[in-house]
């Protein structure tokens, strides 16, 4: 997967952050609980930012190194793409 791709949510998929800060991905007839790092990455998905942009944002905000963040984010997006929750354009 090239990290120049721009991820966006598929139809019928949205991120929901509750008052207590916990996040889930709402999908047709389901809800997927997200851990803090997945939630932070998905909060940056808007169909405009590339994977590179998202990784840069995460590295600026959290104490993670670039390679690790890139691997995690790419793996997460690929899993969601396979389940047709994310489109990469």
């Amino acid at each position, binding site marked *: 997967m090239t990290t120049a791709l721009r991820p966006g949510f*598929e*139809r*019928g998929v949205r991120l929901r952050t509750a008052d207590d800060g916990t996040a889930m991905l709402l999908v*047709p007839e389901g809800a997927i609980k997200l851990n803090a790092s997945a939630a932070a990455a998905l909060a940056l998905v808007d169909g405009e930012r590339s994977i590179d942009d998202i990784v840069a944002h995460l590295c600026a905000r959290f104490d993670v190194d670039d390679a690790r963040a890139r691997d995690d984010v790419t793996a997460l997006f690929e899993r969601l793409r396979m389940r047709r929750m994310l489109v990469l354009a």
Partner: protein
Amino acid sequence: MTTDVRPLSLLCELTYRCNLQCPYCYNPLDLDGYRDEIDTATWQRVIGEAADMGIVQLGFSGGEPTLRRDLSALVRTAAARGLYTNLITQGTFLDAARLAELVDAGLDHIQISLQAPERELADEIAGTVVHERKLEAIARVQNSPIALTLNCVLHRNNHDSIAAVIDLAASFGVRKLELANVQFYGWAYRNRGGLMPTREQVAHGLEVATAAKRRYAGRMEIVYVLPDYFEDRPKACMHGWGRAFMTVAPNGRAMPCPGAATITSLSFENVRDRGLAAIWNGSAAFTAYRGTAWMPDPCRSCDRREIDWGGCRCQAFALTGNGAAVDPACALSPDHDVIVALRETGSRHPTLVPRRMREATPA
């Protein structure tokens, strides 16, 4: 009494009216008993209460929910509270105007059910001419901003068409296809002898679905739901009784699952009389089988007790007369032979009774 388990999902069964007559319908036999439907304002109050409780998923089903003129208004109420909205429909009323109304109201997802991939068989199962209109609705939703899932209930008379169902779904480019073997509630329970797939059909279906799953990976998600009667451990019905789901029937009766009214030893409260949260926390029907304290042996000491929560209460009641019995679908149940015997009804061919509003003699 309060509980720390909180529901995630509410199914609003808006009406049991329907223009189709599927013999596998899970609606109750006494459809006439549900004609006194709760009104728009009551549904809106219930939806608000659901949001307050932290429910995130809302389903609108039936019967055929689009027969309620206020459907879009209810979707709008739910969307305004941030709830995710699903419409479960057979699609025959989804013309361009109705769909536009639902898009505008903020509907997130539509599930359309197909009876079969071929017109003749589909119309025969539905008991009326509907197939072409359904295909038009599928295409229309695919071209809208709303996510689409196709669903086909599998039973003896359409099981052999499974490959054609998959081809049809792929030709529309749908994102998800559910191939669900019939579950025996309501009319389906009454017709179980004629609906039960054969062991060969189930094995073949699983093989075809598994191959297709691989072929379409990343393009179309395919889910094949095995029939309970063919496995030796039960499913985690509703993720456990009173743990994640609530259903409100057309007449306002609040239940832990859509089939719960068949457990005639329980009494249910009505949203006309009491708030949703109070019913969830305190109503006898919700607390009856919540958690593990009610369990008999061998569930009580079984290491799967918090995985399947003892299986399906409705099935336990239907087959043993005791809602607190071990689900007979479990091979460890003392009543498992009832299930084994039922599998064999797949070799007989009784006539199917089409679902109808006026049913003189319930089985």
